[in-house]
């Protein structure tokens, strides 16, 4: 039993038909062509499918596609500002915070949600924010460091903009 779902994806109004019981991850990857959120477990335990829904981090594999109707969804492909990468993306690249890259989209969205809510997080707050995102490659330390670095850079930019 299919149903139309209309949502804003990375700033663009889109629509797709969802099967009954289909999850948001499947809608994004299969029907809307955004393959950036990944399927690591399909049961909400690894965080690879993390996207933002109205700014809140959500496990797309556990959210019904229908429940995204009328909502604002952001994936890692919506992080950049046109051609300018987000400071989180820059910091991950500079800090070698990705190896295989499979956890990276979800990790970045979890980090984005944190920095939106808490622009100057402590190390503990960063760790808490990504505690639901499994990484099998990096050992986490470079990721935590990169998120803190991004926060520093963003604070620096804000200071320069205001000053």
């Amino acid at each position, binding site marked *: 039993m299919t149903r139309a779902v209309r949502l804003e994806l990375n700033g663009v109004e889109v629509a797709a038909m969802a099967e009954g019981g289909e999850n948001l991850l499947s809608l994004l990857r299969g029907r809307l062509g955004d*393959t950036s959120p990944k399927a690591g477990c399909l049961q909400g335990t690894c965080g690879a499918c993390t996207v933002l829904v109205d700014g809140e981090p959500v496990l797309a594999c556990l959210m019904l596609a229908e429940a995204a109707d009328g909502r604002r969804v952001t*994936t890692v492909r919506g992080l950049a500002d046109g051609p300018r990468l987000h400071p989180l993306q820059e910091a991950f690249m500079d800090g070698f915070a990705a190896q295989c890259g499979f956890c990276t989209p979800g990790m970045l969205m979890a980090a984005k949600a944190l920095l939106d809510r808490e622009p100057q997080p402590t190390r503990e707050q960063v760790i808490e924010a990504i505690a639901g995102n499994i990484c099998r490659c990096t050992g986490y330390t470079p990721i935590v460091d990169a998120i803190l670095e991004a926060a520093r850079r963003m604070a620096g930019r804000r200071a320069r903009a205001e000053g």
Partner: protein
Amino acid sequence: MRIRKELFADERDDDLRLVGRPVRRQDIEGHVTGRSTFFEDHPVSGLLHLRCVRSTEHHARIRSIDTTAAERVPGVRRILRYADLPKKAHNILTIFNFGIDDEPALADGKVRYMGEPIVAVLAESPRAAAEAVAKVRVDYDHLPAVFDVEEALKPGAPLVNEYIGRNWFRYWGDYDCQQIRFGDVEAALRSADLVVTGRYQMSPIEHAPLETNGCIVVPAEDGRFTVYTCTQGLFFSLDNTAAQLKIESNRLHFIGGTVGGGFGGKVDTVVEPLAVLAAMLTGRPVRYVFSRAEEMQVSSPRGAERIYIEDGVMRDGRIVARKITHYHDAGAYSRLSTYGTIKSAAHHPGPYYIPNARVDSWCVFTNRTPSSAMRGFGVTGGDFALESHMDVVARAIGMDPMEFRIRNAYRDGDMKAHRKVTQGAALIECVQVAAELAGWPLSEEARRASSRVGGGGERARIPPTPPSRTRAPAAGTGRFEPARSGAGEPRRAITPPPAWTGGQAAPTAAPTAEPARREPERREPPSEPPRPGSGHGAIRFSSVFGSRRR
């Protein structure tokens, strides 16, 4: 992270432009923008989804498979069965003329591990496939199973794999294990000041990559198939797929190279053959991706290993004998375990100069998920045992563990147990630097030691080595050599020498008690040799995994 450029500086030319520099990764921008393309990111329409019915028994004969209800599930297109397989049993190393074809891609009438695929359902959606799988009825005749490697080697143990014909892999035609024989270990153990035994066990370990095993096959032009895959070996998987399907290799076009974590768990080429076969039989694109539960329990793990070590050590810290029995639990099928067992033998007795070494490295079959390569294949389990044991032995003779490493470390020119001369050694320097980092005091002698000094000469000899061959208990030759002695902490009545001060060639205090001797446990040979298992033909040798007989 510092580089100690001053060490081995005379062996390097450090005048390089780009090498060494922290150049940004080529692929990282794709990773942070979500544009890196993994196998499942290729858009393919019209997919059929493949999902396997899997054994719920550890070891059983299949009495019947009823797929009628499954076939009626809307969206089910076809069910693949054993009869559809062009090649009935395969092993991924036989394309190199090594090993035995011992694993059917779908159950051959028997299941040998819980999770083994029995039939494969092809359906229009993952949900339809899952529904159909749940509706397949399999009736089993339960068989006794064996789970312990030492039990599996005993006469009378249930036979796990009939293609192999016995519960261990026979090497080079006639040897029950991969052996290393270097010097006279028994004599050296008898003359050692102290004998220390240990038993170490590593359980299986899952690769758990964030991206599970999988592939998508798309029929292309000219009778070819495009396979988007996460394999770690593109041509290895391509050639194995072609061999299993008995098709020309150039009908397959494998595309991959960007993988969401491998760690050795994406080598076995388990998904591609069934998916390509399905595409061939249906003319449709086919997706076969392991669920997380399948990845956890059905995909091959690192194999469990059980290691017995018996060291003969002198009071001055020299290890003069090391005897190792190392069991590799291959699970129900060979996969790469036959190769890993040899690698493991070669890795012993560790990066040390030990003038008498004896290794028996076994590849044993049990009724569990077949194990295969994982990060540290043939090494991780061995190093756990060796380095734990080094600690036990060091403490047994009252020597500092770092000093003990340096004392026994191999140096350039030393003969290794696999009869090759050490070159490029650097263990001593690593120990010295680690000791510095950790603030671990070292004696003057230890600090002055060098990998480039003190090796070779007498240590370059290949010592006289009495021939000996270890037989499996179930091999039924009537003559049995004890595989290992009792395990545990050293049994000693010995007073340790005065605290190790380094710089002394031998401690000056005499022992106050006789050195403890360990008598090997004697096991009775079976009173009647059991019938030898039916062999499955000779092992062929090739230039890749050759053998040289004496």
